């Protein structure tokens, strides 16, 4: 029987920027759902959904009960994937920041009838 491509599990866990943000935050230490919600300015149902995916893959574990549940990143390092994606994210973020600034200039020029 052919083995399933296991790399897609970890990859899928970090394919989305929201989950990458949670992983990067948990790399700094344990957090509760509310702490993650506040730190990342994400909605709680979305955070919970991401945590479920990350738990499914085994990237995060949880201890405690009820409101006091604390999530932590499991031992293994995701630094290679972080290093791989970061420059690409940076390039596009900077490029689209420049576009945003340029659009402000276009609006100004329209307004003054140039």
């Amino acid at each position, binding site marked *: 029987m052919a*083995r*399933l491509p*296991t*790399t*897609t*599990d*970890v*990859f*899928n866990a970090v*394919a*989305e*920027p929201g989950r990458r*943000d949670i992983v990067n*935050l948990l790399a700094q230490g344990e957090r509760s759902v509310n702490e993650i919600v506040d*730190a*990342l*300015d*994400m909605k709680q149902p979305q955070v919970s959904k991401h945590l479920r995916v990350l738990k499914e*893959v*085994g*990237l995060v574990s949880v201890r405690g009960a009820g409101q006091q549940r604390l999530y932590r990143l*499991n031992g*293994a390092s*995701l630094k*290679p*994937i972080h*290093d*791989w*994606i970061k*420059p*690409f*994210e940076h*390039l*596009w*973020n*900077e*490029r*689209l*920041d*420049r*576009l*945003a*600034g*340029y*659009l*402000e200039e*276009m*609006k100004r020029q*329209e307004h003054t009838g140039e």
Partner: protein
Amino acid sequence: MNDPTSITIAADEPTIVITREFDAPRRLVFAAWTQPEHVRYWYGPSYLTFTVCQIDLRPGGRWRYVLRAPDGGEHGFGGEYREITPPERLVYTEGYEAMPGHDYLVTLTFDEQDGKTTLTSRGVYQSFADRDGHVGSGMEGGMRETLQRLSEHLHAMKGETR
């Protein structure tokens, strides 16, 4: 803490999806993206200069950007327009001139609500290797093996074998 630019690199298809919201009507965003006199101002980082910025905006028309680095090296990108539906949609091929044969298809959609525009860029690559290589070096071979070992390790920790 969140970047305003959202980048999704799917595990199950060779795509990159980039999304961002702009505080401007889509006709301006579309113009900024399709007229060379605008593109020159924002597309490249400040340490690269445009030596070529050509856009022939019609189905089958070609576009070409060449950017020069401080060391004199030039980087060329180009492709062909497939669909042009101003101000809402633009579909074109794109490739890096130094590496022919690995072109990808980009679909840009411009959705406007209350004067703000959500730009979505969906790039579809010919293979995972092409997609991963475009994101950055390190994903071929070595990194995939690393992820494989990591995934097996995580499953073993959970008491599963996959």
